[in-house]
């Protein structure tokens, strides 16, 4: 299974980025081969709809599980319709989060915030 995580640095030792759509990088991890790679988040400088664009990238990479501390309503729609499950990440490193997912200790993300663009409140 392929996992994706928004990260601040391109490493398994990085912390999870507090933002999904505006994270600088995404880390992709394959639970079978245990291989990982990182990509720049092309949505980071979007005027709006960053979450939609970021979720698109996640779906395009065939990801089955996204580990993120938070996620917006629009991104959630793209993920859900693309059959990507969003799990709530825990404080700690990317590796710790991957281990927690494999140990079935993570729960599905249940609250999705409204978009910020034009309603920055």
């Amino acid at each position, binding site marked *: 299974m392929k996992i994706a995580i928004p990260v601040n640095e391109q490493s398994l030792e990085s912390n999870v980025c507090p933002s999904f759509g505006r994270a600088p990088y995404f880390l992709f991890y394959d639970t079978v081969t245990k291989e990982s790679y990182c990509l720049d988040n092309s*949505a980071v400088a979007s005027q*709006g*709809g960053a979450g939609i664009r970021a979720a698109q990238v996640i779906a395009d990479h065939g990801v089955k599980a996204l580990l993120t501390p938070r996620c917006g309503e629009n991104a959630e729609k793209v993920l859900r*319709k693309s059959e990507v499950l969003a799990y709530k990440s825990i404080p700690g490193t990317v590796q710790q989060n991957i281990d927690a997912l494999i140990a079935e200790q993570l729960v599905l993300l249940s609250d999705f915030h409204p978009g910020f663009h*034009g309603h*920055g409140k």
Partner: protein
Amino acid sequence: MENKPAKIAVLSGKGGTGKTLVSVNLAAVAGKSVYIDCDVEEPNGYLFFKPQVTREEDIMVKIPVINEILCNGCRKCVDFCKFNALALIKNKPYVFEEVCHSCGGCMLLCPEKAISEKEKLIGTVQKGVSNHVTVTTGILNTGQASGIPIIKKLLEESLSHEELPTFIDCPPGSACIVMESIKDADYCILVAEPTVFGVHNLNMVYDLVRLFKKPYGVVLNKCLNGKNPAEKFCMDKNIPILGKIPFHTELGTLNSDAKIAARESERFRALFTSLLETVMKEVRHETAVDSER
């Protein structure tokens, strides 16, 4: 020197500083004039003018509709949309209507002609008269994301009154919607409160009008005796102070009764008439300087 009547935008970094007070009262003392309420999320100028509504127009925007039979999932539209209003889900584009800016690009681009457009109602523009003032109000329907198409329509309407002085009551802040409101303005009035927070908000719109290279001046509202941080800010930055409005019980009472101070009280008529003269002098000066540039 050309003596074209000016379009004057009134703005501030936050709500409640007195944009509507200033723009309504200036229009009221300007004789035959136009007042445009661009604060489409919560227009309130009409509460003061109580205009006789002569015309009302629905404002529609165009939203793409995907024909899933014709669409072959090439994703050209998704990659093109710089607003990220389209996502490719299971090989078909999905439209996020609130994110769409109605540019029509996806429809033009689609090689399969699988995209058409539908109309979506987002609000209304109301036009009416109150004594000598033409009052135009933009109203964005609750739940709609962007009032910009309504502001475009309001400003387009104002072109038919170019011979009259026009006062544009802007939305608060310094975001896209304010930029759209001041785009065609000849002069910007920044309304400021006499607090440290007021200075922070003044600074936001001060940056904006300089970015847009608009001539500007400040009206200090709610002035009390004692220190005025907004006044100090203006002196430090060499910003022209157009006038001061006192923090006054009579003015507050008139305003909260939705009365136009300049129509009710001799004292405030004199205050706003003098403010208007100062503003017009500044506008003429700026136009003259501009034509020499």
